[in-house]
């Protein structure tokens, strides 16, 4: 039999340009599956020559999906390079905005992207395996999910003053204090947001119990784990030390984010434009790690809010206290983080400093370079700037969340393809949907940010070893 190649381009429901190639061997079985990311990395060059203080407004343009993460990481890098640590109230307000971003992004992912696969089934009719199908199957919860996302967006709007490219965080703090009315408006949505998310956790746990067989064979593999923590290895999303743990849960490193270059390096493969970060001391691929919700929960010993911490304890029992390696548990972890973010909104809003007008440090002690790190919904986001004496950017290094997970996504694609696709002649839509779901679990964002009509048809190609097209499957 001639060796064949199946190509899925682009992968549905992930942001940006990606392609999956499933190469079949001469025996008709999956030999290897690859995730190719055709990411355009022109943004670092685009920033050169701009003023440092402009970066929180420029970098959100990288992506229309998670502009808040880039906005805050850029502001933190600005704090560092200009030597202007923000007053405590400003950090509280930035963290509050960040929680809004986590809630809207995680909430949307579960209910509108992952939910259809999980709640309606990987093999269900693709015409109904979407948010509308979900609405029809569970209208009450889905309507509440829309409200949950609105609440997260409203937090961002209240603080940012605008819905596109929020203008809020600046080096040294923020440019707007929170009013009491605004605080009360946000608090009014708290109970519903929490109830919706706790209901989703119940659904996810029920699904996991009913689909244990799938979970146990769907993209299960060992890696290290990386994310921010605070004291007591408490999960942190806004500011802390970077902790790296091994596949057995042992702490490998804990370091100031400014020193990330001492620990992290990037590998290049000739089949993807996206680099593969790894832990230097263990080399590539031995030092690969996962970030994002699964990485963060595996990397943390506790969470700072009670309901989320109780859920973390249950999560830790999924693999008897060892790191949870199952790709599908990204969804479980994402919901637990959503609970944390919602609870943390209340904690922040009840802080005595949250309405303070002490929101900007105008002192400056500039230095040649600065680093800002934040846990974006998808994982650790690193902004590193170098500037000249005029405070113009000379060089930028960005390691985006999806980049950290590049190896894991590729491994998950390969693993799921080998597990679920028996041979090239009997490929079903449900099998391919599982391959896509392996990527979607990581909620990647590939920095495309263009959405023009006609840009992205779905094409599946089967090619033989001479690259001749054997079979094409398209769908809307």
């Amino acid at each position, binding site marked *: 039999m001639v060796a064949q190649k199946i190509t899925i381009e*682009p*992968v*549905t*429901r*992930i*942001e*940006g340009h990606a392609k999956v190639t499933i190469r079949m061997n001469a025996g008709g079985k999956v030999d290897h599956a690859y995730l190719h990311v055709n990411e355009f990395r*022109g*943004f670092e060059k*685009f920033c050169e020559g701009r003023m440092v203080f402009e970066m929180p407004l420029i970098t959100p*343009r990288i992506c*229309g*999906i998670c502009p808040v993460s880039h906005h805050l990481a850029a502001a933190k890098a600005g704090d560092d390079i200009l030597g202007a640590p923000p007053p405590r109230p400003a950090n509280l307000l930035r963290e509050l905005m960040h929680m809004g971003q986590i809630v809207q992004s995680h909430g*949307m*992912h579960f209910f*509108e*992207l992952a939910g259809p696969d999980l709640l309606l089934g990987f093999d269900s009719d*693709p*015409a109904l*395996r*979407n*948010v*509308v*199908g979900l*609405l*029809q199957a569970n*209208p009450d919860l889905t*309507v509440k999910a*829309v*409200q949950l*996302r*609105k609440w997260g*967006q409203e937090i961002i709007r209240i603080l940012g003053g*605008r*819905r*596109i*490219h929020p203008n809020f965080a600046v080096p040294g703090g923020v440019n707007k204090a929170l009013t009491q009315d605004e605080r009360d408006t946000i608090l009014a949505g708290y109970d519903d947001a929490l109830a919706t998310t706790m209901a989703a956790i119940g659904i996810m746990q029920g699904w996991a119990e009913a689909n244990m067989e799938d979970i146990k064979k769907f993209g299960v593999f060992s890696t290290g784990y990386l994310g921010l923590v605070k004291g007591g290895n408490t999960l942190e999303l806004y500011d802390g030390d970077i902790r790296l743990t091994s596949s057995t849960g042992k702490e490998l490193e804990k370091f100031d984010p400014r020193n990330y270059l001492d620990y992290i390096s990037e590998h290049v493969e000739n089949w993807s434009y996206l680099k593969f970060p790894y832990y230097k001391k263990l080399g590539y691929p031995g030092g690969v790690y996962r970030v994002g919700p699964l990485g963060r929960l595996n990397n943390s010993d506790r969470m700072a809010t009670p309901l989320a911490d109780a859920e973390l304890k249950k999560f830790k029992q999924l693999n008897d206290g060892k790191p949870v390696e199952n790709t599908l548990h990204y969804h479980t972890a994402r919901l637990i983080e959503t609970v944390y973010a919602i609870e943390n909104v209340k904690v922040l809003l009840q802080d005595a400093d949250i309405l303070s007008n002490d929101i900007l440090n105008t002192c400056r002690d500039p230095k040649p370079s600065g680093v800002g790190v934040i846990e974006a919904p998808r994982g650790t986001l690193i902004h590193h700037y170098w500037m000249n004496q005029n405070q113009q950017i000379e060089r930028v290094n960005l390691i985006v969340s999806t980049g950290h997970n590049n190896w894991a996504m590729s491994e998950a694609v390969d693993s799921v393809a080998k597990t679920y696709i028996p041979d090239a002649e009997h490929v079903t839509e449900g099998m391919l949907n599982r391959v896509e779901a392996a990527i*979607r679990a990581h*909620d*990647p*964002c590939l920095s*495309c*940010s*263009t*959405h*023009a*009509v*006609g*840009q*992205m*048809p*779905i094409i599946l190609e089967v090619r033989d070893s001479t690259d001749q097209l054997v079979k094409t499957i398209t*769908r*809307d």
Partner: protein
Amino acid sequence: MKTLIYGYGNPDRQDDGVAWHVLHEIMKHYGLPVSDDLDVDFHDEERQMVYDFQLQLTPEIADDLDVYDRVCFIDAHTGAVPEEIHLEKVTANFQKSPLTHHLTAASLLSIADTLHHKVPETILVSVRGYEFGFAQSLSAATSSLTRQAADIIIKWLEEEHCIKSGDTNGFTNKT
């Protein structure tokens, strides 16, 4: 009769943001104030028209569509669509999206229909994009189409829906 004119795209990625420019052309036609701000959110109370611009369509928009009788979505398109300016009537039809966090207009109407059992009369006008780099300026080819696209939408508003033409000045209420 309330009308929503809703543009979407990324103005920082050149022609992907052409809808913002078309939206401005329509607002200028009706004598409404425009600025360089990307965050367009304007209510013309005299004509019962709302102008909005976002980076993308998101599901929560569906929850707000029930107050409108007519909607015009404005987007960019690539060479996969043959016409330079494409107009189509949109009906509720959920389409599996190839992008995370991205909905088509038809999918959005489908969600709106499921949420409120009501779908406004809707058209989508898209303009051919040629360049999608990191810049706010349109390519010359796409820029030359913006006025034409605005005229198509204005004609739809005025001839099919009797919106008061743009030579009057009474309006406006910034929200």
